[in-house]
């Protein structure tokens, strides 16, 4: 059963490939080789790609069996041995040209069966509307206030990852950041590339690339955002503690806590070890904070 399926698959693939090559070669031969004599050996062509090409090639001109040069010359040309070498040269030139053209087709074929484009509708313009008229909706969608969003764009837009030396420009940074924040603010299916692509009206690949770029740009600010407190920050933290409880406790300026990031599903490797007390599969994260600038953004 499996063997049959495999055989069928192979046959289908071969057929498809053969069709493509046939059409490509017929294009090439009709345009390129009108005046030059095409000399191709049937047996060589057969062994070259293990597909049958003579049907295509017979339309092209002579078929000369190079294994037998005498008969070849007698059918095509009655000249001396000199013309045989010309035939051979022509043969090799043709053969190499076709080989290169074939290689070119194989290397540049990206989509075997082109499908119609997936209909999408961008909702990004709603963000501009919400920014002006209802910031709370903007915040609900992207999980940051419009001012924070602008600040983030300013922070990351000069990162080299957003500047490619190409005529095809990337999406603007604020759109890439919107896509990233949309994914960061959702979980499960909603944060999948497909859903994000439908929301933003761009392709799935662009969603993934934008996400990666924004993460790279944000990580470049890691050490500025997360570092041990300097004297000023420490003092602010102590002032906060003093205000909330009492002056005697002001030297407790740091706060430790743990949190868990739940996984989408049970990991395959050491699955049971990830099972936590809350009944989910998760990875642990320990965080130490100071009481300073309590607004945690991103």
């Amino acid at each position, binding site marked *: 059963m499996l063997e049959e399926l495999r055989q069928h698959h192979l046959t289908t693939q071969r057929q498809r490939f053969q069709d493509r090559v046939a059409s490509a070669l017929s294009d090439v031969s009709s345009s390129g080789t009108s005046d030059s004599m095409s000399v191709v050996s049937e047996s060589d062509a057969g062994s070259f790609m293990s597909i049958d090409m003579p049907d295509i090639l017979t339309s092209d001109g002579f078929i000369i069996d190079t294994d037998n040069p005498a008969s070849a010359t007698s059918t095509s040309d009655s000249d001396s041995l000199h013309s045989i070498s010309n035939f051979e040269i022509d043969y090799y030139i043709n053969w190499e040209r076709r080989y290169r053209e074939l290689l070119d087709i194989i290397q540049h074929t990206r989509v075997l069966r082109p499908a119609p484009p997936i209909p999408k509708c961008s909702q990004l313009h709603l963000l501009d509307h919400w920014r002006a008229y209802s910031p709370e909706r903007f915040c609900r969608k992207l*999980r940051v206030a419009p001012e924070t969003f602008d600040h983030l764009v300013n922070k990351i837009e000069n990162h080299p990852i957003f500047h490619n030396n190409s005529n095809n420009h990337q999406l603007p940074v604020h759109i890439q950041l919107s896509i990233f924040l949309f*994914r*960061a*603010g*959702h*979980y499960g299916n909603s*944060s999948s590339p497909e859903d994000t692509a439908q929301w933003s009206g761009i392709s799935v690949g662009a969603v993934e690339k934008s*996400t*990666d770029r924004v*993460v*790279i740009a944000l*990580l470049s600010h890691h050490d500025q*955002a*997360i*570092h*041990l*407190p300097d004297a000023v*920050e420490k003092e602010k933290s102590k002032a906060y*503690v003093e205000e*909330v*409880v*009492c002056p005697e*406790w002001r*030297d*407790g*300026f*740091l*706060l*430790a*806590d*743990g*949190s*868990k*990031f*739940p996984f989408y599903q049970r990991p395959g490797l*050491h699955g*049971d*070890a*990830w*099972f*936590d*007390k809350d009944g*989910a*599969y*998760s*990875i*642990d*994260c*320990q*965080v*130490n*904070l*100071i*009481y*300073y*600038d*309590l607004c*945690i953004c*991103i």
Partner: protein
Amino acid sequence: MIVDYSVGHTGSVHDSWAFRSTRTFREHEHIFGAGEWMWADSAYPSEMWSVSPFKKPARGELDHDQKTFNYHLSKVSKIHNEFRPFGSCYRFVFVSSMQLDC
């Protein structure tokens, strides 16, 4: 402001064990000056530089002073509740940065 973090232990690991991987634990001599400490919940070890609430003993109750201490300590660690909801938000960020590392 986040000053230190540690990620990577499995979810089944206890907080006090996972905490040992943080820089704060390993370099606590440098981070905490004389008489300085950090606040933690009762899952964390009680040290000279780590203050956690009194735990209710297996038999019996906390006395009045201990309860008062815990009451005020909970005020200073109320930021817990502000931090926790961000867990789900961070989830994706964490996973995507992990993919980049691979």
